[in-house]
């Protein structure tokens, strides 16, 4: 406590700019938007206070629940697809040979491209007449498997989850690579000398050491999945008949196309609340697993 004042000053002045920026440009608009959620407002003219009506309407509307269900598919696909795959790739690519660097750079490439390009190319892969997927299926003689992948409501959502997983693996790969690099090499070496197998070392050294990063990755996965919008918007616009509607596209549509600003704001507030619940849940689960 010799340098208590310097410490306090540093903490205070160090945090000030971030806190200020964040409060003004993120926190206030969010509360503001939640407030609009209590209004019957078309985005134009008079707003009328209607209490919780918008929230009740959303929670009793089947399309809201359908969107939430679709969102949960994306969340599940990301958490159980993206994270393990990125981790596996990170473990395989942790040496710096030119080949590994090439693969690493490639895995990230879809992120570099605009989601418009990704959306269009995947639409063409799934396209029923001249699409790549159906083409391959005919080529290998599986004619009966051919399908209108994005038009069939029973599979469309899963088909869209694939490009979403594939597209966003890059950042998780990099996070895991960075985390892996912070594990002291001696730990692994020592364990290897003690005769621990690779699998054993993975579970008793590597994973515990990067557990925090995995948790961060899962939080990012959940929040990212609930905000997912761009790819859906390009590929299906949420259709056919809401089959691939996500909460974010449902919110966007209500706000900017159907002129229900208040309702859209209520939905976006619900998105935040649902994300919070999911993240809290995932953290509790992981804490238990960790023990």
């Amino acid at each position: 406590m010799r340098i208590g004042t310097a410490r306090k000053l540093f903490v205070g002045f160090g945090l000030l700019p971030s806190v200020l920026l964040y409060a003004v440009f993120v926190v206030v608009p969010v509360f503001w938007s939640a407030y609009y959620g209590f209004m019957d407002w078309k985005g134009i003219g008079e707003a009328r206070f209607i209490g919780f009506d918008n929230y009740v309407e959303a929670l009793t509307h089947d399309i809201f629940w359908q969107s939430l269900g679709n969102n949960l598919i994306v969340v599940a696909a990301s958490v159980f697809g993206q994270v393990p795959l990125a981790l596996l790739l990170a473990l395989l690519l942790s040496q710096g040979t030119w080949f590994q660097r090439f693969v690493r750079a490639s895995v990230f490439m879809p992120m570099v491209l605009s989601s418009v390009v990704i959306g269009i190319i995947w639409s063409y892969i799934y396209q029923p007449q001249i699409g790549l997927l159906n083409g391959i299926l005919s080529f290998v003689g599986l004619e009966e498997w051919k399908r209108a992948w994005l038009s069939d409501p029973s599979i469309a959502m899963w088909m869209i989850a694939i490009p979403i997983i594939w597209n966003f693996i890059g950042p998780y790969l990099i996070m895991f690579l960075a985390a892996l690099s912070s594990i002291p090499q001696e730990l692994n070496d020592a364990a290897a000398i003690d005769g621990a197998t690779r699998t054993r070392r993975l579970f008793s050294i590597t994973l515990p050491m990067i557990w925090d990063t995995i948790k961060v990755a899962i939080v990012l996965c959940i929040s990212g999945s609930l905000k997912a919008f761009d790819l859906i918007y390009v590929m299906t616009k949420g259709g056919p008949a809401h089959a691939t509607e996500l909460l974010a596209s449902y919110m966007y549509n209500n706000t900017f196309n159907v002129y229900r600003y208040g309702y859209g704001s209520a939905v976006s507030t619900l998105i935040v609340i649902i994300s919070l619940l999911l993240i809290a849940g995932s953290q509790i689960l992981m804490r238990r697993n960790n023990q």
Partner: protein
Amino acid sequence: MSTSMPALDTGLHKTQRQNKWWRRSIRNILLGLYALVTLYPLFWMFMSAFKSNADFFANPFSLPQTWNWSNFVRAWEVSGMGKATMNSLFVTFVSLVLTLFFGALTAYIISRFEFRGRGILYSLLLLGLLIPIHSTLVPLFSMMNMMGIFDTHAALILPYTAFELPIAVFIITAYLANIPKEMEEAALVDGAGYTGIFLRLILPITLPALSTVAILGFLRFWNDFAFALVFINDPSLKTLPLSLSVFADGFTTDYSLTMAALSMASLPTIIVYLMFQEQVMKGMAAGSVKG
């Protein structure tokens, strides 16, 4: 390690070594295939950029029938990409510097100092990951009007930074959690101030994490459409994504010009990505030497 063991050339060892060689080859082939799959969209985008619209629709997956270099010229001229690129570079660069500096500072304080409200601050920042940005458009627009920064580059830089802070703090904090504190404590004993420690110790150590944040931030700022659409009026201040969307008029989309424009716009992102990726790797190498 098994490979450095003195070679007792028995038959058993030979098969083991052969096995290993096979496994590695199969692994590398699979990795290589995966890399090609992820690189394909990039290739596809550049190919499509050369096609005529008719060619694009008739043969989405083949090479261009004729190489229309003029697509690039027309796309560049019609969308006014020259000025927009300069604006995008400026806005992205400034936002990135602010994000990295304040993100690292906040993460450092949160992970190394005990102070009142730390938990709340961290949770509030977590909340920022969950905000669907479309819901903040109207409140932010009204606020910027009041603050008088509407229609300036600050109207993009400040919210970009604010919305990117959570992810930056998150990644860097997680990274710092795995870094031993001894060095900082030693520096403190040597009489270095907190500012000095932050600038001379923390920033260099967290380079891999910073590079991850930089890559993600760059992509987000460079590709953002929603904020750029709403917060900028003056045509001479517009950023790239706006000029890229001029080829779709709601009824028809000029795909070849769109692809040509997107190809040109993605070049900087590819370069930046490769650059920072190198930093992530260098940081990793440094980490393993040190550790």
